[in-house]
């Protein structure tokens, strides 16, 4: 197992190539970058900050900054860490604007009540999966998000970047602003706590 190379979202997107294509005039590449930025902002809002109402603000901010930065960046391969730093800052600023309550997590399977009173299910079933498979994944995600909620915020952030998003240790260190050794120490402790929570009845 080597999570540094196996995270799903980051692994599947070659951001450097997308940035170069976007700078070369590809609207499709720009659209993909802008969608990735919003997806990351959405997951960060839910999993690290814990509020669906923050997600729209964070997605909008990530969108605008990505649009501006992707057109002007001189080192396209540095785009990915820039994007995660930007999303982190956008989400944390949105969170601070709300209230001074502690960050918490929201299950992707939970129903979220917005400030305007509307409610929204965070997850939707994938029509390509068998119902039993979808149900198992739904339960697993629910359990995971409850377990994540118990972690200290700094551990939750590391788990999100490294295990959920698939960034390398070096990239996580750059995004968070700590040493790689510290990333590893936090990651292993967080992973043990997470495992314990998932195993507890």
């Amino acid at each position: 197992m080597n999570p540094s190379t196996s995270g799903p979202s980051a692994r599947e997107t070659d951001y450097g190539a997308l940035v170069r294509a976007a700078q070369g005039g590809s609207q499709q590449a720009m659209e993909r970058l802008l969608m990735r930025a919003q997806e990351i902002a959405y997951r960060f809002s839910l999993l690290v900050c814990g509020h669906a109402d923050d997600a729209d603000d964070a997605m909008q901010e990530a969108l605008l900054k990505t649009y501006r930065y992707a057109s002007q960046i001189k080192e396209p391969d540095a785009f990915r860490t820039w994007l995660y730093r930007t999303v982190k800052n956008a989400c944390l600023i949105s969170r601070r604007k709300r209230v001074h309550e502690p960050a918490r997590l929201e299950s992707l399977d939970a129903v979220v009540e917005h400030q305007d009173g509307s409610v929204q299910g965070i997850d939707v079933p994938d029509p390509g999966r068998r119902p039993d498979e979808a149900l198992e994944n739904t339960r697993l995600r629910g359990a995971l998000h409850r377990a994540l909620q118990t972690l200290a915020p700094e551990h939750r952030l590391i788990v999100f970047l490294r295990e959920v998003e698939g960034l390398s240790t070096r990239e996580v260190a750059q995004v968070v602003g700590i040493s790689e050794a510290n990333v590893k120490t936090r990651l292993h402790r967080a992973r043990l706590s997470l495992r314990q929570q998932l195993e507890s009845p």
Partner: protein
Amino acid sequence: MKPEPTDRCRKLLEEVSRYLDGDLTAAERRKVGQHLQRCPCCQHMADSLKHTVEACHKAGSARLPADVRSRARARIATLLASGPVPPRTA
């Protein structure tokens, strides 16, 4: 029945996680590998940690809700229709 951890197992908790990431020296890796081969408790821990990481990966690939995706697409369309990015000012 779940195997009971010994004091040695408890001391090796973080090393088992590091072992899975290939994050140990050769000597440490050999020591933890040998322990894992004969300790059902730590084998269980290693399997459980692998499942934990897999669960995180699945969360990362979860689809956006349809309404959120739809709003995201609309924002992109509006932004791209607004024209090129203005030059950055110092």
